[in-house]
């Protein structure tokens, strides 16, 4: 099970142990947080930690002094075992021992396989046992197969240079992000003549791609017309309608 260990500054003594089970854990100075840290360096509502697609993710919710993971300021970051989250003068160490057990390999015999290749469902308990059986640490399992350790997620950011939008900076965490006037758009354009759907940014395996969302929309990347899908690189300039922004990777 994943846990947070709260310490103050350099001190080794653990002030509190917070098990992360399910749902969202909120961190902040005010008592309505699930992890309350009563210190003035901590914002009322500072950050939150939640489970997303197999990982715990920490996200700053607009704190004044920032959220740091291993000394780096983050807007949002995936937590891995051993990460040090600094909030004000406090340190939360993230430990996720449960995830290590998942590195197990599955015995060849498997469950009682019925005739032909009829589909079999493992119930949750069986699946856990099966995956956990012969469960060595992930590192050992990986060294056998030689698969690389998954890298930290690269998160893209758009900084708005021109155009009426509701924010100046957008952290692109979603699989798909729309630019436009539509209520579905994350990057919400304002103004009478702004297109409802202007362009779509997709995120795939740590890469980002942009394409106009309708044929009649003129999208430019680094000053060149870009009618099809185009991968975004650090420093790229995006122009669509009256919207102009630069793309970069966080970290």
């Amino acid at each position, binding site marked *: 099970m994943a846990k947070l260990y709260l310490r103050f500054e350099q001190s080794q003594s653990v002030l509190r142990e917070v098990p992360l089970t399910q749902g969202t854990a909120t961190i902040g100075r005010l008592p309505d947080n699930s992890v309350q840290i009563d210190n003035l360096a901590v914002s009322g509502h500072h950050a939150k930690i939640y489970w997303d697609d197999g990982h715990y993710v920490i996200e700053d919710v607009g704190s004044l002094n920032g959220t740091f993971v291993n000394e780096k300021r983050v807007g949002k970051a995936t937590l891995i075992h051993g990460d040090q989250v600094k909030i004000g003068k406090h340190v939360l160490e993230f430990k996720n021992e449960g995830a290590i057990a998942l590195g197990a390999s599955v015995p060849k015999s498997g469950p009682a396989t019925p005739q032909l290749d009829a589909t079999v*469902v493992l119930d949750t308990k069986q699946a856990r046992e099966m995956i956990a059986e012969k469960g060595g640490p992930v590192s050992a399992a990986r060294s056998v197969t030689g698969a690389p350790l998954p890298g930290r997620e690269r998160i893209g950011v758009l900084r708005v240079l021109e155009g009426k939008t509701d924010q100046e900076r957008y952290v692109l965490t979603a699989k798909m992000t729309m630019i436009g006037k539509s209520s579905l758009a994350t990057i919400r354009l304002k103004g009478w003549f702004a297109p409802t759907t202007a362009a779509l940014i997709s995120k795939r395996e740590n890469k980002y791609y942009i394409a106009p969302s309708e044929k009649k929309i003129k999208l430019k990347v680094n000053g060149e017309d870009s009618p099809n899908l185009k991968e975004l690189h650090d420093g790229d300039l995006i122009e669509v309608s009256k919207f102009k922004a630069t793309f970069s990777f966080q970290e």
Partner: protein
Amino acid sequence: MTLAVEVAGKTDVGCVRANNEDNFGYDSRYGIFVVCDGMGGQAAGEVASKMGVDILLEYFRNTAGRKDAAGQEAAGPSQGSSASPTRQPATTANGGPLANAIRLANKRIYEAGERETGKSGMGSTVVAALVRGNSLTIGNVGDSRIYLIRHGEIQQLTRDHSLVMEQVRLGLITREQAEQSEMQNVILRALGSEKEVEADVEDLLAVSGDLLLMSSDGLTRHVRDQEILKIVTAARSLEAACATLIETAKDRGGDDNITCLLLKIVDRPWYKHILHKVFSGGRQWQNSI
């Protein structure tokens, strides 16, 4: 300009099995599209997959215009989310209802399995898509898949809940090893196998020109992603694409039932939209088979 969905679907028993445990259905009026792949002996698989399709379609027909009223029933006993730290159910406009509809289908299939002798252990996978304008919400339990074809590229939107793909994600085996594995038929989640199920539900975006392929594993075990892309983009119609996909899988053994439901997001100018409504251009819905 409004977005509309064109759709074609086809299912085939394959070359080996005696009966078809796959099912699919859709209702374009509510933007709901479903494929289910059933399992369980003595025809129970067919019952489960049919129930899966029918319950999802009914859910959106009944709750249209209402604020997710049936959601509460589906949530079941109050310990809904205490099992394990899992993905948060989507809470957005469409993600919530889709998650609720899948939970409801699970509950009904599970109860039917408990109640009726000979049907215990029946279950089904489900992939569902809810398309409303530019909003696309997908839901998945099991190893059926949804692919998105956009700008000449194919992408699997769902994550298989199968043992081998779990091992691939953990870096224990390669994708190639997974495709050879004799454990491919082991799935980790299904509708109806346990009292509660956790569906992967995700809110995405659709744009004009997008193609969505929803299929059972009878297709994807035999036809690779890049081949699917080639077949679908080369076909002259959605119907022809479905037929060619199924034929290709059958040519390679077709040892399982094969189902394809292919959607295309198209721009429809307002006047065509009205013409379409008045003259009902083709079928708007299809119930389970």
